[in-house]
């Protein structure tokens, strides 16, 4: 009999019951909650006269709607304010821990969970947010759910699930200097497509993944959903354990050794079978830039905008034509000739301390180019912001002409005041380049923090490996 994958192990250890049809009841260890996808769930709970099954398993934070400017002024948009106040009220009524808008620990839900040690190896982690896959970086089974499921978890601590297939993406070799976790995951999506992981739990493996920091691993798992997989995950190793030790919600001294020894099993067995395996050579990867309106529409910095006429599939061809029309790009145009007028460094993909350091290293001593109308840095959490300020990164950014903001989701999805206007073009470290994602009519190019910084300085996309040399 063949061994188990990491996903098999996580699945089996959370199985409460299973019926003959394969429908299973899966226990949920950690439930993360934000203001946008929870109000209807709490309302449902209240209407049915139910209470949360285990309030202690829940950590809540407002992030999507919060302003990134002066927090003391509150939220000026009355509709956004009601939603954030509704979260505050629900958490207080149901005895749920919440990092409110003015708490230093507030930030993007997928940044603060790991930062607090509230995401642990071996856990099931859910949140009403598709980028919950981020937490799989810790050897956890983590996936996004809809609001009805949020209510289900609140009421029962469980979810009704069917098991997904096992898929492994192995990235071998070593990354060149200047090539980051973001480039790895964009290249993976470019290779397998935005539906390539649909129906699978995705495990990322190989030397490149092993060599990544926890921040880098979170970036990779974060975008598993952009490859169609609800869950992405990475085996536990010393990097994972070193990251967690001493964090507020991590196991205390009384259980630390026991926990670490249990976590040692959180990897796929050598003889485990995968339904699908994809391999990439990390050594040949170049920094990536997306050119279209789907994350799979991505190419290397030394590439060109592709020609739809060269695509044989008629549905894809039409999709490419629509994308190029929306993005106002011509086939054959060099990626380095694309000139963004906005730069956004932030989001649950790339707003951790390592991301800010990588961007700052490129910017240090340089200025934002004249053609850039706005360059924003939005740290992932209050603690990331504090640390960056302590390291002097804030000054590097502001002296170069960047705005230094308060933490939140911000221009990744533009639910707050930070948004593109029609026709604006943005070099963004976020995760989605969908039409209108960063503001109606706005055009998004997905890149790594270092590449966003390089574009800010050059005024057009450029290979960060060359900027760093000068």
């Amino acid at each position, binding site marked *: 009999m063949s061994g188990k994958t990491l996903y098999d192990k996580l699945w089996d250890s959370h199985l409460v*019951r299973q019926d003959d049809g394969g429908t299973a009841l899966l*226990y949920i260890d950690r439930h993360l909650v934000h203001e946008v996808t929870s109000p209807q769930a709490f309302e449902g709970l209240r209407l049915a006269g139910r209470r949360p099954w285990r309030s202690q398993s829940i950590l809540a934070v407002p992030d999507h709607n919060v302003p990134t400017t002066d927090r003391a002024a509150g939220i000026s948009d009355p509709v956004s304010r009601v939603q954030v106040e509704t979260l505050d009220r629900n958490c207080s009524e149901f005895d749920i821990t919440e990092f409110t808008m003015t708490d230093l620990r507030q930030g993007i839900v997928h940044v603060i969970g790991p930062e607090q040690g509230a995401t642990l190896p071996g856990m099931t982690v859910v949140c009403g*947010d598709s980028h919950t896959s981020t937490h799989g970086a810790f050897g956890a089974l983590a996936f996004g759910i*809809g*609001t009805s499921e949020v209510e289900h978890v609140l*009421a029962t601590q469980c979810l*009704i699930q069917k098991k997904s297939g096992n898929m492994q993406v192995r990235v071998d070799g070593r990354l060149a200097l200047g090539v980051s976790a973001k480039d790895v995951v964009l290249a993976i999506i470019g290779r397998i497509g935005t539906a390539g992981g649909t129906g699978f739990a995705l495990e990322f493996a190989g030397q490149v993944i092993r060599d990544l920091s926890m921040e880098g691993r979170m970036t990779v798992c974060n975008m598993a959903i952009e490859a169609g997989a609800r869950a992405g995950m990475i085996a536990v190793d010393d990097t994972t354990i070193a990251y967690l030790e001493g964090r507020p919600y991590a196991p205390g001294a009384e259980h630390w050794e026991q926990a670490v020894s249990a976590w040692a099993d959180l990897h796929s067995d050598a003889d485990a079978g995968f339904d699908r395996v994809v391999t990439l050579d990390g050594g040949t990867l170049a920094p990536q830039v997306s050119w279209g309106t789907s994350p799979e529409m991505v190419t290397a910095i030394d590439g060109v905008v592709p020609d739809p006429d060269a695509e044989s599939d008629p549905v894809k061809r039409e999709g490419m034509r629509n994308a190029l029309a929306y993005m106002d790009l011509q086939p054959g145009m060099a990626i380095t000739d694309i000139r963004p007028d906005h730069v956004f460094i932030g989001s649950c993909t790339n707003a951790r301390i390592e991301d800010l350091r990588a961007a700052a290293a490129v910017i240090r001593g340089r200025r934002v180019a004249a053609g850039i109308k706005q360059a924003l840095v939005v740290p992932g959490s209050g603690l990331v912001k504090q640390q960056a300020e302590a390291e002097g990164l804030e000054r590097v950014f502001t002296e170069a002409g960047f705005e230094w903001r308060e933490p939140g989701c911000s221009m990744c999805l533009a639910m707050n005041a930070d948004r593109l206007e029609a026709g604006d073009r943005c070099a963004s470290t976020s995760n989605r380049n969908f039409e209108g994602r960063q503001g*109606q009519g706005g055009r998004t190019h997905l890149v790594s923090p270092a590449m966003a910084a390089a574009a800010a300085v050059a005024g057009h996309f450029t290979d960060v490996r060359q900027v760093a040399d000068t």
Partner: protein
Amino acid sequence: MDKFTVISGIVAPLDRPNVDTDAIIPKQFLKSIHRTGFGPNLFDDWRYLDHGEPGKDNSRRPLNPDFVLNQSPYQDAVILLGRENFGCGSSREHAVWALLDYGFRVVIAPGFADIFFNNCFKNGVLPIVLDSVIVERLFKAVAGSPGYTLRVDLPAQQITTPEQEIIGFEVDPFRKDCLIQGLDDIALTLQHADDIRRYEKARRLEAPWLFDK
């Protein structure tokens, strides 16, 4: 949740792959704390020529005449025909609430994103996966005869065309049962409360740190 047995009605074609939930319901409408009222803003960026905001009177906004739902007879469609990877992106259940509020009860596509697919079942909307060759044929049939209708019979797992052709489809037996009976699955799960408590007790012994804080 409304029960789902047999639905007949007009099919609206949305001929583009990777329709994401940001397109189905743009972010500014996610600020609502209710489950209803999203229908007028379904596909807002594509459907109107101006920028939509919550609270705006949608009946006075300029419509995009090129968008399918603004063309007769698709205003009355109950079945949406889509392409690959329908519903990708954000987990927002508001996308399904918007489709339902508009009047859609069925979405047919060659493939769906997992979270969207799941959210449909929780709200009495049936997502049907059909082979891309059949979907292509349906797009052609709809283009050739606007107002084209289909009859979707969930208990029999069959779609009937106006020409009386029958197309079978697959659906998970548990989800099918929940849809037909309009079941509250939280109540179903709570029937197993003892199993959940038993699991929790064992887990607490095995991994006590998960229950510390």
